[in-house]
């Protein structure tokens, strides 16, 4: 199955400038398995999104079809075919 990942401007240098990535992933998919698929091609992107234990970074938000994944099931959130995952930095710092 194929899903789309929207990349914020600040991270596009890690993916050759793309704002949108189409990702092929085996079904059934989760947010974590989508990110695993991305990691093999874009390791420099992955390490900004997840730590070395594949934990989602605290101040990075992942909206799955408009819903932030932490209000769903985190990295285990099921992903449907054709889903859109938007990555956005959260409000942090001072």
């Amino acid at each position, binding site marked *: 199955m194929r899903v789309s990942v929207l990349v914020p401007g600040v991270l596009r240098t890690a993916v050759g400038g793309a704002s949108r990535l189409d990702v092929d992933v085996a079904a059934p998919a989760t947010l974590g398995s989508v990110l695993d698929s991305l990691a093999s091609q874009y*390791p420099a992107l992955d390490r*900004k999104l997840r*730590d070395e234990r594949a934990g989602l970074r605290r*101040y*990075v938000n992942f909206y799955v079809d408009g819903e932030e994944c932490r209000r769903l099931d985190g990295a285990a959130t099921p992903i449907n075919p054709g889903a859109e995952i938007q990555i956005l930095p959260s409000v*942090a*710092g001072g």
Partner: protein
Amino acid sequence: MASKAVLAIGTRKGLWVATSEDRVSWHLDGPHHPMTGVYAVAIDTRPAVPRLLAGVTSEHWGPSVATSDDLGVTWDEPDHAPIAFPADASLERVWQLQPGSVSQPGVVWAGTEPSALFRSTDGGRTYSFIEGLWKHPHRTEWGAGFGGQAVHSIVPSPDDPSRVTVAMSTGGVYRTSDGGASWEASNTGIKAYFMPDPYPEFGQCVHKIAQHASNPSRFYLQNHHGVYRSDDGGVTWKSIADGLPTDFGFAMVVHPHEPDTIYNFPIETDGRRFPPEGKCRVYRSRDAGNTWEALGSGLPDSFWTAVMRDAMCTDSGSPAGIYFGSRSGSVYASPDEGDHWHLVADNLPDVLSVRAAVIAS
């Protein structure tokens, strides 16, 4: 050959690089890596072209190590995380980047939070995990100081690559003599006033250790209350706090050419983290801590801030340059071993780390 001084200034919101021909007037460039906390900086002068290394932590995108071979004009980071824990932890922050001895070009050590040690053999681009320290049976009892739990001091032996001494908060000093496979606590004589046994085997909140390459058996140490010296390679420690206005502080720096000359920035107490009377003063000892003198020419008399553990350093010049930065964003330099001070920069973010070198211009 013409030379210039380079001063790398790591702050809570990025890195600045200052350069100077005379160590009095400075040109400031930055911020590099804006909005990252730069707890660790290093200037590796062993290669033909000096390399800047910066441990950067973004609140959003996590920790990393960046290197520059052109004094910060361009920066490089590997695609994969340069420092990564194997399975049971994740990197929070890089607290120390320490080039190895001259006899080991390419070796760079990294100390991290959580408390662990990593070693690079490619000049600090990528690092390997030192399993021996991580598997130490004391590790489960190491605690977190106010700043976190981290290995913040790394002293590789100048003449024996198998010997390395580290310090962590809290935990104390540990030494290896087999290249990192095994480690022993090395805190005899160092006080931990906040523990039921004030002289435990380990658990001390050591703030910084330092050594001069010409005398590897001697160490200096700033503790969470207590200033110490070891004359037996860190096996035992004795107080050298007499003559200082207070025994609290974070920084401990050794003169680059005189192994008995050291610098310290006293802070009142752990409950009042200001310089005594609010006066900005560096203290210098020229006899390995037996006597101390206050240095204040050019420094302010109203200075209600503090100097962190890695925010004081020397350069390699002659006479030696001494540098420090404050949590209030001021950076001072002395071109004459601390006798006179000049402002390098003001109103920067909190200064967390400084390192300096004199290089060919």
